[in-house]
């Protein structure tokens, strides 16, 4: 309820802000021009990778102004093709951005013909121009100098569902003359035509997404009802681009899409790599409370050199560039009223290292040039692609000089250090780059090196350590040897219980060897050790953001469950003829935690000398600790309450249920208190305001 009100407030405030302030400059000029996502998903400040160089409205193209242009393509001959949709023409510019040709009509076998709001244009390797002549519902092919080649209209095939309205919006062709077309409403996939314009079939259908609730309803509805419901249909592609090797890049405009950009091979399988911290889907840290809420929506994608590709997000007007592994390289652009910003960006293309963006509503072409930072990143990726590791490292170093926040660069340098055998330095770079996989590899080599170099000392150390323990235990035995038989004392009881649960808990209950104080100490120790574990366990297994680490949480995760368990267990066993007193329950539960306390420290030490491959033993220790704990808890509960094993299990499960109920009531109470507080606060504020 409060959330709703909050949303309303926000909306009202936004409206007010937008109305009264319009565009607001910063009080501080220090906000960085760009950002890059860190491993933790934080948008860390970054320098600008691209800056606007020129903007063209059409007036300066010597061909009259553009009108709602919708597609942009740069051909292999570096010519720039613009689908000037509103003017029903195609503009061809040279690489100096001067108009070379205006294609607004052609001679169709003796008859003068023209376009009707073409939304897509493409130039094939041989210079042939393909136009998605949208409102004429056809694809038109022209030669490089604008002579009519062929045109093919609505495809006829049994594959096409009846009632389908063919409206081609984007078109590309591969070297072999295969033509791929995206039509509005064609959710079956990309339409594939052969070089003669014969429809061949659909390619790369998007998977259907539905939510389980809808599916359930659908299952239990009658056929008549089912027909009334919206059908589950795949999301249609909205754009495509072709790489020189024939792979297709596609985009879909869907909220929260997991794979908005795809790279399809000839059989329509998505082969896009996603090795970065996050999948290539634009902005990661998004919220719903903004005037452009939610995930990025890609409307175009363009391949670039060395496997780089850039997607154009229409929602916030940003360009996201990824390398071939899916690492986010840089982000630039935005919506706004400045010349490097957009209103409705619709198309992106690369002219060498320059990025061209076409804006439909501003009817404007913006040319971006890479900054030193952008160039350095591109160099590094390109050199790496060409196998020139040294140059690539030098470029990454250049990148880091300009942006110390860029983790991909740390990894890049780390890799080359690893190759050179400087394992220690590589480790620190991988740590800065938050890459555990490579860190583990570097650590493995480093460890090997140390073991190799100092094997003697290590062996000696291990030997001495074992000898010491041996001697100590001997000594301890000798000390106690003279004494009379002593049964296990109060202090030792927890340890004894850990390995001899039946005896231990028995002694605890009936021989009064349990102490609540000890149990509480164990719980506190566990909390402390889990903090230690969290902070000091090795990088390979430590996925915690230590800068944001707060120990209150740890206490919450250990103390709260403990308290809930003992209270819930006490309440349920009172009803179920349990013999255990509250004190005993506390003691037994506390003692049961002992194995986890015992394991924590050695485990933490161990984690610092392992590689990723060996981490399974680390996790195994965790599992052993849990199972042991559950076993002790089981025995403890059984002994304390004098239950049968079956009843114990039932009790323990019921305890969990009670914990759930308690949590629910607690939350209810909490939210009530919160509402009361907010009511008092707003009352106070209103009185203060009206006074």
């Amino acid at each position, binding site marked *: *309820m409060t959330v709703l*009100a909050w949303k309303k*407030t926000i909306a*009202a*405030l936004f409206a*007010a*802000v937008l109305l009264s*302030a*319009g*565009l607001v*400059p*910063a*009080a501080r*000029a220090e*906000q*960085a021009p*760009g*950002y890059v996502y*860190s491993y*933790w998903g934080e*948008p860390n*400040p*970054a*320098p*600008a990778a691209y*800056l606007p160089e020129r903007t063209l409205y059409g007036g300066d193209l010597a061909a009259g102004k553009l009108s709602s242009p919708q597609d942009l393509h740069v051909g292999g001959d570096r010519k720039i093709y613009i689908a000037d949709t509103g003017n029903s023409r195609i503009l061809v510019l040279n690489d100096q951005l001067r108009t070379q040709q205006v294609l607004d009509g052609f001679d169709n076998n003796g008859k003068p013909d023209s376009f009707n709001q073409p939304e897509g244009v493409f130039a094939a390797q041989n210079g042939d121009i393909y136009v998605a002549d949208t409102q004429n519902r056809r694809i038109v092919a022209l030669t490089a100098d604008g002579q009519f080649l062929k045109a093919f209209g609505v495809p006829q095939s049994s594959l096409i569902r009846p009632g389908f309205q063919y409206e081609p919006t984007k078109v590309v062709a591969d070297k072999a003359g295969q033509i791929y077309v995206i039509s509005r409403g064609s959710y079956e996939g990309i339409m594939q035509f052969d070089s003669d314009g014969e429809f061949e079939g659909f390619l790369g259908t998007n998977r259907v997404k539905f939510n389980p609730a809808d599916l359930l309803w659908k299952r239990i509805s009658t056929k008549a009802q089912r027909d009334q419901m919206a059908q589950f249909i795949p999301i249609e592609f909205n754009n495509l681009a072709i790489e020189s090797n024939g792979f297709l890049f596609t985009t879909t405009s869907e909220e929260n899409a997991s794979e908005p950009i795809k790279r399809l091979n000839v059989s329509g399988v998505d082969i896009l790599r996603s090795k970065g911290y996050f999948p290539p889907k634009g902005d990661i*840290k*998004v*919220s719903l*409370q*903004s005037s452009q*809420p939610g995930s990025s929506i890609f409307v175009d994608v363009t391949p670039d050199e060395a496997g780089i590709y850039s997607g154009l997000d229409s929602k*916030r007007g940003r360009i996201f560039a990824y390398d071939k592994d899916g690492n986010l390289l840089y982000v630039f652009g*935005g*919506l*706004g009223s*400045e*010349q490097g910003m957009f209103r409705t960006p619709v198309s992106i293309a690369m002219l060498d290292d320059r990025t061209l963006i076409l804006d439909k509503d*501003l009817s*404007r072409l913006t040319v971006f040039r890479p*900054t030193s930072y952008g160039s350095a990143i591109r160099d590094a990726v390109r050199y790496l692609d060409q196998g020139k590791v040294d140059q690539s490292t030098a470029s990454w170093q250049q990148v880091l*000089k*300009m942006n*110390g*926040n860029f983790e991909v660069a740390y990894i890049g340098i780390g890799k080359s250090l690893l190759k050179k055998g400087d394992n220690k330095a590589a480790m620190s770079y991988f740590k*800065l780059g938050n890459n555990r996989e490579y860190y583990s590899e570097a650590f493995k080599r480093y460890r090997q090196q140390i073991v190799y170099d100092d094997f003697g000392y290590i062996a000696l150390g291990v030997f001495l350590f074992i000898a010491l323990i041996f001697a100590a235990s001997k000594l301890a035995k000798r000390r106690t040897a003279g004494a009379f038989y002593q049964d296990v004392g109060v202090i030792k009881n927890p340890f004894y219980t850990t390995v001899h649960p039946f005896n231990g808990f028995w002694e605890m209950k009936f021989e009064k060897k349990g102490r609540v104080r000890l149990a509480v100490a164990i719980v506190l120790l566990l909390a*402390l050790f889990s*903090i*230690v574990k969290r*902070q000091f366990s090795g990088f390979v297994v430590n996925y915690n953001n230590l*800068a*944001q680490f*707060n*120990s209150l949480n*740890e206490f919450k995760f250990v103390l709260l469950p403990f308290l809930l368990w003992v209270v819930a267990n006490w309440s349920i066993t009172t009803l179920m003829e349990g013999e255990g007193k509250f004190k005993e329950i506390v003691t037994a539960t506390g003692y049961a935690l002992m194995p986890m306390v015992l394991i924590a420290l050695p485990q933490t030490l161990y984690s610092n000398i392992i590689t990723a491959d060996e981490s399974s033993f680390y996790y195994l220790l965790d599992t052993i600790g849990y199972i042991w704990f559950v076993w002790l808890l089981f025995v403890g509960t059984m002994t304390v309450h004098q239950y049968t094993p079956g009843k114990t299990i039932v009790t323990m499960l019921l305890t969990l249920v009670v914990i759930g109920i308690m949590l629910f009531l607690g939350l209810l109470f909490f939210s009530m208190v919160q509402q009361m507080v907010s*009511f008092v606060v*707003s*009352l106070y504020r209103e009185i*203060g*305001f009206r006074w």
Partner: protein
Amino acid sequence: MTTSRKWSIGALCALIVLAGGYFGLRGSDSDFAAPAAAATANPVKAPGPLSLAPEGGSSSPNSAEELAALQKMQKKAENADLALYINEETAEVAVQQKNNGYVWFSNPVGKDNDPLASPLYKSELASQVTISYYNDKGQLSTYNSFDDSVKKKQFTIGQAADGVKVQYVIGKAADQTGGIPKAIGKKRMEEKILSKISDEAAKKSLLYKFKFDEQKQVYTAREMQDYVAQEVLKTLEQAGYTKEDAAQDNKENGIGGEAESAEAARFTIPVVYSLQNDQVVVSVPAGEIQSPKSYPLASISVLKYFGAAGTEKQGYMLVPDGSGALIRLNNGKLGAEPYNLPIYGEDGTYVVKEKAQENEVSRLPVFGMKANDHAFVGIVENGDALASIAADVSGRYVSYNSIGSEFQITAMDYYTLTSGTRSSSVPVFQKKLYGGDLRIRYAFTDGASADYVGMAALYRNYLVQKYDLKPLPAENRSPFVLEVAGAFRKQNSFLGVPYRSTESLTTFDQAKGLLEMLQKQDVGRIALRYVGWFNGGIRHASPSDISPAGALGGTSGLKKLAEYTKNNGIEFFPDAAFLEAYKGSGSAAEFLNRSRAKVYEYDPVMRTQDTSKFSHYIVSTSKLSGIVNGFLRDYKKLGLTGLSLRDLGGEVNSDYAPSHPVDRQTALETIEGALDNIAGAADKVMVQTGNAYSLARAGWIVHAPTHSSSMNLTDEDVPFYQIALHGYFQLAGEPFNMDDDQNPKRSMLKALETGSNIYYQWFYSEPSIVKDTDFNGLYALYYRDWFDDAVKMYQEADPVLREIGNQPIVGHRKLGEGVYLTVFANGTTVAVNYNPKAVTVKGVTIEPESYSLQVNRDAAKGGE
């Protein structure tokens, strides 16, 4: 350099003469036609390869229509330079320049024949003042002085010293609607009125003005425009229906005296025009403005169409966006938003939940217009902190290009009251308003100096006279401005217990080391700005009480560094922030919604306030003098001589706290006082991003704007800021390593183009120290990465910069895409090429990302 030596002597002559012409006239500010005459009179055959030949355009006198319009006006004031005319019918004003007879009009003369303008816009074109006001719901309405005052004859023209004062009463005339019943029974309507009107059409049109309630059988009057009410009144009078009848009807239908008590939206706005030498001063004494309580006056726009240029004119408008930008007349960019940016940026004490984009801040309260070969420049002399500059090109609503200023009088925000799921927003208005003058000064120029350089010269002269500025002394070397980051507070955690520790980025000792290294590389003159040296570092606790950071070496370390700088001729500027409180809310101002002015950082992704990232509290200027005094007390003990001000020269914020409200202009005046106080205590003062009011108290400006926001409407950036200020101030733009481009070469070219200094921002520690901290914005500051580059840049630029350090810029021109030419007063000419390939302009080739230099003849002789 070598290419430059090959230049022809003829080119030299042309340049020197041109430059000399500009320079010569700095002494006398009245005669701006002189340089053009001098330039053309000189027998130079061919202009040099890179000369400043005017862009073309012959002299264009007023049109016959304009002269006819002048005939209808009365001369009200006159001096040796100007004559002031006013049309007593329309309150339009004209100013005639005596040297060339050119007349400037407050409203375009051809406005009635504008083919584009709607009637409303025709009225706007005819207005001198437009106002907007709020109603009780916070909605805005506008009035213009033509429709709502002049047409109703609600204005008076009186005398003022050297000029004329026009008093407008804008808005609803004194209530004349008393004769119209607010409500009237059906029976009486028919008896008293309808039966007495014979004309059916008139009956019908009268009934349209009333709403009939079927149930009650009552007619209620609809909202009527003034002129409609007049018509209705006339009809009623003819029908013999009187005021008394109306009162009776109102009473019968339960409408009491409240109708009379409701205030009318009526505003009294005085405007004073006066001549001061060769300039016109237009002022609105804000203290004399009268506005009704229930209709707060939101803003006043004064002389929006002064000197507006029609579609036949060529030229541009100058806007002070960032370093300055030009909007070409009739550029046809109708898809772009009209230009409207506040001077000194937006008021910080205004909650902005979402910030779509960050524009450059307008640092100078100046705007200008060049139409053919005439130009004017407007200087917002007073009320500048309340002003915005608004400009638009022809073709949108009217066929004129116009530029002017607008003053915000009352700020308004919504206060949201929430209870459970329901919430309502109530408008809150600023309580205390500015009571001083809102004053704009217009100055004129023409001929060859009618360009942005000429405008900058006018503004420079204005500043020189106002503050008695002196040009910088000649120096042997140009300064290398080095900014080092001292300490910062790092968020740490031990065993999950979070704590903050002050960690060093550059200790005092390391800073000294950097200086030594630079000096060893023959960096002859250094200015050191040291940021984050006390109270926890960069985001320091209140400066009212300072203790140098122990992590940096403490007081003794600081004193040692100060000693070292003194002995080695290094200018030392420790930095402090006074208007932003990074710790402690004690001195915070308040927002309109009565909460403390807490500013958060903006999320770079969603562009919304990120409430998990506190930025600072806005300090109320009512507390400023106490803080500054406290600071200076400690500062004097440290034996320092220089001081750098992070925010005193860069932001102005109001305070809406009911107990101690400060409007933005008063805040500006308080800041001026604080600056005076500081300038009295420190020998040398450096400001970051110098706003106009801070200039007189500071000799050094860093982070001076180097480009504009490139708003969609603008066409071209110009370094207006530097052209106006160079020679009188030591300027530096963005640090070379933190500039948008991060390309020191380009930054150096910019420095040469604008006469700015080499400027780097460094720290000494390993760069990864700031990664994943709140200070990760300092991502490119590691000195070792930039040191060699910096020395190279300095060695390359210094020979030029030391020649021109104290020389004002007298010429600046774009020669081609990415190629600019600057002429300094001593004749030194620098042409820079930002392009990645060589360009040849008029026979001179400039290498890629390089420059070409031409020094004046005397200097050349002396040098060789």
